[in-house]
């Protein structure tokens, strides 16, 4: 596979991955051509196109178009399924994925893609394994942030603990921003719960 592009119905690029080195200008041209070509397609028409010597395979999922470019000998149907598998993976990770998830967490979408495809080749077709390796990194993230928070701001947490501990329980459904000297940090429900427990111990 040469590239993978995700763009919205308005032609806004949401994610781009190039598997072979391509000059910047060429990338822009391809992106432009792809969006115009694919967006011009009528619904229920063929998912395969030609662009120069490349085969283009695209599919629309809700408001988002997934579009990839293949070499001549590659299998179009398989590429279509690959796109589908990627969507499944995103869905598993975000849970009922929507375009907003990908807009706001596009780096996560990249991480998932990197676990799924490597250098343009399908790396891992097992849904479980991909999810696991992405989650492993995420869990680590949660733990690490927690430790840093605790280490950095003991005072803050004593205050937190003393002042609003009954609210901490309410927070389990959402997330909140901590206004720290370093800026605003968002901590999730899980963290708050963990924090709370850590403080109690």
């Amino acid at each position, binding site marked *: 596979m040469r590239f993978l592009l995700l763009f919205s119905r308005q032609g806004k*690029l*949401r994610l*781009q991955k190039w598997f072979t080195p*391509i*000059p*910047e200008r060429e990338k*822009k041209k391809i992106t432009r051509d792809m969006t115009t070509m694919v967006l011009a397609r*009528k619904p*229920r*028409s*063929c998912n*395969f196109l*030609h662009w*120069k010597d490349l085969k283009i395979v695209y599919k629309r999922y809700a408001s988002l178009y997934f579009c990839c470019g293949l070499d001549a000998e590659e*299998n*179009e*149907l*398989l590429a*279509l*399924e690959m796109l589908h*598998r990627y969507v499944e993976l995103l869905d598993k990770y975000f*849970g*009922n*994925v*929507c375009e*907003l*998830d990908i807009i*706001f967490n*596009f*780096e996560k979408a*990249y991480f998932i893609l*990197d676990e799924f495809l*490597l*250098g343009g*080749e399908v*790396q*891992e*077709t*097992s849904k479980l*394994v991909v999810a696991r*390796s992405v989650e492993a990194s995420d869990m*680590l993230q949660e733990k*690490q942030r927690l430790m840093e928070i605790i280490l950095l701001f003991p*005072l*803050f947490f004593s*205050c*937190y603990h003393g002042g*609003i501990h009954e*609210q901490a329980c*309410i*927070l389990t*459904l*959402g*997330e*909140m*921003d901590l*206004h720290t000297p*370093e*800026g605003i940090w*968002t901590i999730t429900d899980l963290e708050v719960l963990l924090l709370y427990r850590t403080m109690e111990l």
Partner: protein
Amino acid sequence: MSDVVEKTLSALPSLLSLDSQAGAGKLSPSSKLGNLIKGITELTSKHEEEKLIKKELESIKEQVASPNTTMRQMKEIMVRAIYCEMLGYQASFSYIHAIKLAQQGSVLEKRVGYLAVSLFLNETDEFLLLLVNTVLKDLQSTNLIEVCMALTVVSQMFPKDMIPAILPVVEEKLTHPKEIIRRKAVLALYKFYLIAPNQVQHIHSKFRKALCDKDPGVMTASLHIYLQLIKENPESYKDLTGSMVTILRQVVGGKLPLDFNYHSVPAPWLQIQLLRILAYLGKEDQGTSEMMYDVLEESLRRAEMNHNITYAILFECVKTIYTVHPKSQLLEKAAECIGNFVLSPKINLKYLGLKALTYVVQQDANLALPHQMTIIECLDHSDVIIKRETLELLFRITNAQNVTVIVEKMLEFLRLTCDDYSTIDLVGKVAELAEKYAPDNVWFIQTMNSVFSLGGDVMQPDIPNNFLRLLAEGVDNVEDRQLRLFAVDSYVSLLQGVTAKLPQRFLQVISWVLGEYSYLREEESDPGSVMRLLARLLDQRHTSTETRSWVLGAMTKLCSSPVSVALARDVCERYSGSLNTVLRQKAQELMILSQDTKLRARVLPAEGRLESLEVDSSLSFLDGYVSEALAAGAAPYKSPHQRQEDLVQEKALSLEPYGLSLPVSLSSCSITDRLTDRRSPTLLSMSSGLSGNSTELSHQEGSTTLKLEGVKRVWGKDGYLAQQQSAGETPTPLVELPNPLLSPQSPPSQTQKPSSGLEPDQEKRQLASSLFVGLGSHNSVCLMGRAETAPRHFRRKPRGESSSGASEGSSNSSHSSRSAAVDNLLLSNLLDSTTVASEGGAATTTTPQQTSQRTLDHTTSNGNPHVEGTEQRVEAGGPLSLIRGNGMVAVVPPTHTQTDPQTQQDLHPAPALERPRDLPLASHLPAELSGLARSEFTPLCSDQDSSLALSACRVYKEDALVLLVFISNNNDSALHQMVLQLTCKELEISCISGSPLKEVKGHSVSVCLHTVVMKRASVQVELAGLLSYQRPLGQPQAAQFSLSLSLKHFLRPLTVSTGDYGKMWLSFSHDLKQNLRLVTTEHQEPLTATLDALKGKLHLHVVDIIGSEGIVACRLLQGPGQGQPCLLHCRVNADSLAVWLRSPVPELPDSLLYHCQKALTET
């Protein structure tokens, strides 16, 4: 602190009101990125967005530059920078910080850093060099996640030159206990293989291990590498067929863990990969194909579930079945399967069905017959993609009977499409079909008119060129006259209409044809009419300068009558003052020739149109004029290339000499060119290319050769023969064609309708019968779907030697036939190639093309003792043919007669007494190497009583230098515990003999084989060897020896075209210039002699010699199919040869130059 809490609390309501989806926990619209994104969505104009992003980038820039920014903040900033880049705004200032983040951040920050790096940078970016250390550190980390990230980034992008730095660590990971690491390592190595195959050459055995890995994921990953390897060289991996078949059988049989299922289909990606590998392995190989029939059948049978993924497998399976050696039963099943695709209501499947059909009708055109009605429906499909694919299919099944209908459909499509790429493609196809199968003149000309007007200026230039050649060729019989006359008539009527919409290319064609053939219609109309039309064309504003010069050229040919002369004078007056020099010159020519009837009759003889004229490509008739001018003080002529080069030297700007692309067209050829050849503009440019000195002219030549190749494919020997045969069998269907429905030749299946449920109307039936006519009836003929009869005069006639003139292509074909005979001769004469190699001293094996060229050299320079003496070709049987198949060239370096005296002796029929061991040693050469050229046997050392003797021999394989060490034991007792070590830090030595030998029995000889590759180019290297051994009842002993290997042993010719040479030249950075002495011989030009001497001694490939310049290419062995290229550009300067060397590696030009100097001084 309290206000922090307050703010936190104030944020609570909004948080609680958020949808509590599972994904919402990760959504962070309140972050800075969130704000940015929200900000953008609220904007209405592109301009506002630009302003906002600019502001954002400013603030990012400020933040990244601040020393107080923590890595954590950096990570958040980087995400924003990525977002801005995705929107198309440059954030290049952040690249370096992305690398810093990857270097210094904690695991998660690192991950974002790596992601940013992989998104921001390109493989060639210098910033990447800064990443190498980080990657290396992470690869060695104990944290699995860090290792994973490093492997991921490495397989996404890594600088080619730095691969050796991390290769050992990546290699190590192949044995890592975690399968995810092993898998990623394999993929990283796959990536390395793609960008630098020679680097990973030594770990091929480890790939095999990965193939046998217990984890299916790792095994799957290794298949990527094998697919690539097998694609490049299927012969070497035939032994894997069994394993691949077994794996596929297991996968199909559901033996893999359920994890690998995709929609309950077992590992589809793996299956398809395997099917693809099997296709490469079984192609044109019956034995291998037979091994896979069973499993292919099983795959077809098992993939029955109605899901896209099973269709993907089926499609691949069908392709494999039609690629490998055919088995009728399987083919039937595959055809049935294609039917399912084609008949499917799903549009994607229909598309693939058409694709599959297109693929298979090349083998059997009848396969399209059952799907006639579907194809007709697809032809009118609302989706252009389907239409386009259908036309592709029809193109494959075109024959003389259905050509009109199919071409009409194609033109119909062309009129509607606006995509340049498919226009170019389709226009070429229409032109090809029209040329091949045109039923009559009228149709042909009309079709070509449509081609020219639709193809416009985007179409391939060879279409008009071929068309003009077709018109110009051919004997002057009634048919040809009619064709030309019809063309003229149709163009006259076109010009009488509105010409504004006609593309320039078409206008050029029109003016050439009118200029050339208007005389055919002159009796029936007034002489000035064509002239007036042309003059009108000149006046129009949209006519380009190039077209104008064509028009003026045409007028020059036409201005015979008084009316025309008057018109011509008018035109001349206007254009003789033109700012464009070409136009001005054309106008002057027109002026002079229109006034001087005698001169005109000489320059443009009316009756000489069809004769091919002798070409004096060296323009020797101008010699007198030139010498006079020189004597009068004129500056000597410099070719554009030379001028450019001088310019470079003066200004020290790197304007590359091969980068020029001055358009060489008819317009730049003066009237004298008309003398040289009047057949067609293509030939014209070629003849001028031959007379010129510049390289871009040879580019032009290159492209012409290419065109002729295309021509050969269609009009080659076979096609022509087939036509002759069928002409005897079937009467030309020319006359009774118009209504194919009534045609007696219509196939029976037309009436036996396919069992599609719907009742097609009469129109469609008719269309079907006209489309598929001629398919069923010609079972035997239409194996390729195109061996139909066609009107004879539309076929391009193969021109004989006499008419070849300046045409390279035709002379090529005549050479090849001649050289074939010579090849055979050589083959039969030189059965024992090795003896010839040793006798000849210099032996060369070449590809057939090269042989033919050389043969030509021989025939032209017959009786030239120099050539005969220094070059001797060896055609070996088995092994060589393999090399030929690869299109590679094996050149045997001459044994260096100057350096070792022993070889000198060998040159003469060796006195058997003096060198008793030579012949026995030769018999110990491994069979696979015996056909290849080799050096003499060089004695290395022997002990005092000569009970043990070591000799060496180099075998010059096309992809490697094989060093053989012969250990001759002349004693009764055996040698034990032998260990042979070869060391040299400049060389990469790998043992290729199966098992390291341990002992040598009494009175026998053992051979150790090593492949040797130079790590970096150097003039000469010393190889140190140590053989330790033990005699029974003796002490361990050792024999030391040394052997010197020179750069030239590692050089192989690099066969490139002049065009490729030019491209390569531009891309290489290291260069070197030097003057060398010229070799002078009696029989050859100094340049040719010098280059021949270099070619003979250093095995360079002479790409081209043009005038006083020659370009030469070679490569330094670096592994199979690999090599460091070095290009030489030589120019004769007075009595020395100015050589300019270029290569991607710095050392190579230096060392090569040294050898060139040495070779030339020795000559």
